[in-house]
């Protein structure tokens, strides 16, 4: 036997379960007093630069029923395409924009909603620019490993056409599953876990 590698295995994922709100957004489910405010509910303040937008939609299961118990987190660049992270080496991101948000599906309608700004473009490792996009992470009862996807913007057709990740998708009919549809300052982004319109999910 050769020597063992000094590497560990990632802790296995387990489902977030039906009571995920208790841990991630306790005030949302009426647990007040433990934390003053649920994290991720406000992504920006009045001084944040960029175009104010909303992103909303449903997450649908294999029967077309919306999930009413999921939690979604988003992560995105600021208006200049910079991330507020120590790993960001290209500049300093807008201090008035968090880049990260968290929302629960409405317990009755299943609608989720984020109020944010439209992100700038971020380069791919080879220097090509990606289309503006928001990264999403979806957890819920019945999801064993959090699902990663992205939303691109319907009014960025030219940038989307050159996006290295969208270009990688072999089945071109699936690309529209990653495009949020603009109405005014709001983008509709529905996520389908299964079926003919199954959203493209990523192994990142």
């Amino acid at each position, binding site marked *: 036997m050769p020597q063992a590698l*000094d*590497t*560990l295995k*990632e*802790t*296995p*994922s*387990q*489902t*977030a*379960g*039906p*009571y*995920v709100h*208790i*841990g*991630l957004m306790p005030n949302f*489910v009426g*647990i007040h*007093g*433990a*934390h003053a405010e649920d*994290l991720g509910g406000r992504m920006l303040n009045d001084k944040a630069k960029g175009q104010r937008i909303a992103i909303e939609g449903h997450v649908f299961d*294999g*029967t077309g029923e919306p*999930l009413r118990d999921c939690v979604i987190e988003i*992560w995105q*660049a600021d208006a200049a395409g910079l*991330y*507020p*992270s*120590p*790993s*960001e*080496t290209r500049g300093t991101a807008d201090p008035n924009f968090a*880049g*990260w948000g968290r929302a629960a599906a409405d317990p009755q309608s299943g609608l989720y909603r984020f109020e944010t700004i439209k992100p700038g473009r*971020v*380069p791919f*490792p080879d220097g090509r620019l*990606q289309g503006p*996009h928001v*990264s999403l*992470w979806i957890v819920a*009862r*019945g999801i*064993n*490993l*959090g699902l*990663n996807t992205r939303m691109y913007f319907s009014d960025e057709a030219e940038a989307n056409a050159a996006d290295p*990740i969208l270009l*990688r998708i072999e089945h071109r009919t699936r690309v529209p599953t990653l495009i949020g549809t603009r109405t005014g300052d709001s983008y509709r982004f529905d996520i389908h*876990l*299964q079926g003919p319109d*199954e959203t*493209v*999910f*990523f*192994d*990142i």
Partner: protein
Amino acid sequence: MSGRSNEAPETGPFYPRDRLWHPPALTPAYKTTVLRSPQRAPISFSNTMSEMTGPVFGPNIIGELDNDLIHNFAKPGESAQGPRIIVHGRVLDERGRPVPGVLIEFWQANAAGRYRHKKDGYLAPLDPNFGGCGRALSGEDGSYAFRTIKPGAYPWPNGVNDWRPAHIHFAIFGSGFAQRLITQMYFEGDPLIKLDPMTGGLSDRRAVEQLIAPLDMARTIPMDATAYKFDIVLRGRRSTMFENRLEGN
């Protein structure tokens, strides 16, 4: 936002995730996965800044009782009911290096196995002094600790007579959004673990064992609380984009 000024920021891509180590999306014994599991292969691509960066939380968001579930929802002078325990461990990456300054959120049922959530209809009683949520930041050495009560096992509507082993849910941020992880910690010696459809989704017995916290007598507080150790491993990453520079990689 990071106070770790002496440390070169890690900016490289993450090691690919070993998806076979995780439960597959479709685990029919856990019935809810049947309609919620994507059926097409996920599409892989090299990490970009969107995956290698992630939110950072400072100590300013952590309240004094956030790591004390025995008291953070209790009336003044009172405390939650149940066996008092300390849960502690370290957040490491796949290279065994500490991951400092990351936010860990945890939630659980009370000692009777009941969650403070309107969707939980189990007949066991709520504890008026127990909310069931807390959070902590990992220290410079990746360590974290919190006090709580040992949660109870509870029945759940899956099979006719399915019981979840006692567990605590954990949600962990890393230094990049691609490290985001939710898992559950189980307790050494619980006979319900081997009957559980959720851990049953793990194909490798060692993966199940990685989720079981041993009793840690060295960290107990005599006449106060027993202790369980739960280390968490996040995906590892290369330290820089310059892969021809060997040192530090």
